[in-house]
């Protein structure tokens, strides 16, 4: 399958700041792709480069094989849904949606039919005559979506599409966006700082850090097989242990050997960081071979889950464990309680950078 969008060594600086610093990536047709990263990582600049509002200092952007690096934004078969929605305040919902089609020369009955079809797609058929200021946040967002989708672009860019919505609506719209993407068959490229949003919606994610791709892969890859400490830290919660490879195991100062996998792939004595997800930390009441003694420092009830903050007895290091609320221990993890913990070696990931 050939790529729909190809970004080839693209870089863009604003003065001394390298906003985008050499990025290569490809988006497949009909893919839901997410650009994820903290603020200032360059994701919005990259989005604006693809939309055509900025021009790269070097590198090329291709769409369907055609070089669009210097094509003006109004000539690109790409549409952008703005973070602020950017609805035209003086036009009704209908005219907002019709605007892009009018620019293509669509008129009369055809125009009306396509606008109505787009409004139907986002469940706003009854709101065609309203002005933007008469709509709720969620409705405005759907108008913005309809306005961008009605032109049937090859690629739809979405800048923090759910950022301005409250939590309940956000969850609903995540499913809605996914549905729209599948129904229309248009490739979506979403920019977000919310890792949960990226994990639930995207087919693939590019995690950006300081203008470069830290890791690109499926959500599961990023979550379960992070390649760097930055990725492990940004996506989900993580416990880190700094240490060295010693013999067949991983040694953490003050803790001794801890369970880890992949030590043999690293040279003896190599410095590394061990990453363990909180939900992979098993809590036990009794001591077993290989368990680490720990004291409960506090806990947070999250509904379906319980977050337990522990302090390791040997070196006082903090450790976070997450257990389902249905777990036998969940009801009795008051502060000060002595527990024992361990994790399976395959759930502990060694990171060298």
């Amino acid at each position, binding site marked *: 399958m050939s790529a729909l969008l190809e970004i080839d060594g693209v870089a863009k600086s604003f003065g001394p700041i390298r906003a985008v610093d050499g990025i290569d990536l490809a988006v497949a047709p009909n893919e839901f792709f997410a650009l994820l990263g903290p603020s200032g990582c360059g994701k919005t600049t990259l989005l604006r480069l693809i*939309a055509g*509002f900025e021009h790269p200092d070097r590198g090329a952007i291709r769409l369907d094989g055609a070089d669009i690096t210097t094509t*003006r*934004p*109004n*000539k690109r078969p790409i*549409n*952008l849904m*703005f*973070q*602020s929605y*950017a*609805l*035209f*305040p*003086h036009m009704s919902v209908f005219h907002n949606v019709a*605007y*892009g089609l009018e*620019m*293509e020369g669509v008129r009369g009955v055809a125009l009306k039919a396509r606008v109505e079809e787009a409004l139907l797609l986002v469940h706003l058929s009854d709101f065609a005559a309203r002005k933007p200021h008469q709509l709720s946040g969620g409705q405005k967002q759907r108008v913005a979506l309809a*306005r*961008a989708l009605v*032109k049937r672009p090859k690629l739809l860019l979405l800048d923090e599409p759910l950022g301005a919505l409250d939590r309940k609506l956000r969850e609903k719209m995540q499913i809605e966006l996914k549905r729209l993407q599948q129904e229309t068959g248009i490739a979506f490229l979403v920019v977000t700082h919310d890792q949960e949003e990226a994990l639930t919606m995207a087919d693939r994610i590019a995690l950006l850090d300081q203008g470069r791709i830290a890791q690109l892969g499926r959500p599961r890859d990023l979550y379960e097989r992070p390649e760097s400490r930055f990725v492990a830290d940004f996506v989900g919660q993580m416990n880190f242990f700094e240490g060295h490879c010693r013999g067949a195991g991983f040694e953490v100062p003050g803790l001794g050997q801890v369970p880890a996998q992949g030590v043999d792939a690293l040279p003896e004595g190599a410095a590394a960081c061990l990453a363990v997800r909180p939900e992979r930390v098993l809590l036990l009441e009794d001591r077993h071979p290989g368990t680490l003694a720990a004291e409960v420092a506090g806990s947070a009830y999250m509904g379906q889950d319980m977050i337990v903050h522990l302090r390791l007895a040997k070196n006082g290091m903090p450790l976070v464990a997450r257990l389902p609320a249905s777990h036998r221990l969940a009801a009795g993890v008051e502060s000060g309680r002595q527990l024992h913990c361990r994790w399976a070696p395959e759930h502990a990931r060694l990171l060298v950078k």
Partner: protein
Amino acid sequence: MKWLQAHLGLVYLFLYGPIVVLIVLSFNRAGLPTVWTGFSTEWYGKLFANQKIINAVQNSLIVAFASTVISTVVGTLLAMGMEERRPHPALEALVAAPMIIPDIVLAIALLSFFSLLKMTLGLHSIVLAHAVFNIAFVCTVVRTRFKHFDRSIVEASIDLGAGAFTTFRRVTLPVIAPGVIAAALLAFTLSIDEFIIAYFTAGPGSSSTTFPMQIYAMIRFGVTPEINAVATIVMGVSFVLVFLSQRLNREAAA
């Protein structure tokens, strides 16, 4: 509380008492400006029969209309450019300067400048002179409108396939229109009763006498009810224009 109200009443009396007297006396039957002798609209009739006044009003309307058109176009484009480019604050202050420079200074400066260029003086020089300060007012009023302007709608228009001109015509201009109209009304009001600058830049001869200049010429022979009638009309028109201008701006902000 009572004292406060009395105080307020006195302030309003001070502000509007003379104007009320003027309006009342414009309907006075007698030619004496200070003694009430009965209601009459004859001075308004005489006013409209006075060819000098009619000519002066025509001149003022031409000047006000032309300088309003020039300053509205230039001032709006200036405001848009400043929103886009964000120039140095000193340069921004310079744009507003003609509003603050005393009229008499501006009048002398413009007259010297026009003579330096060896330009003939007449209605056209008054138009240009009025455009100078009106551009500053228009730019300032339109810029307040831009404070509520979401730049991303311009990008959204381009993203949806519109060119720069279509974006201006269909998105930017309609959104800032209330500000532009308010600015134009203000410019018109400022121009139509402007005296000092017009007096300096009108040049010799009575063909380019504007309305305020004509009144000034008449008043040298004493205040007549005719002048009271003129002032009443001018005030009415100015009041309506300023009221419209403010209303438009307020509605736009809401």
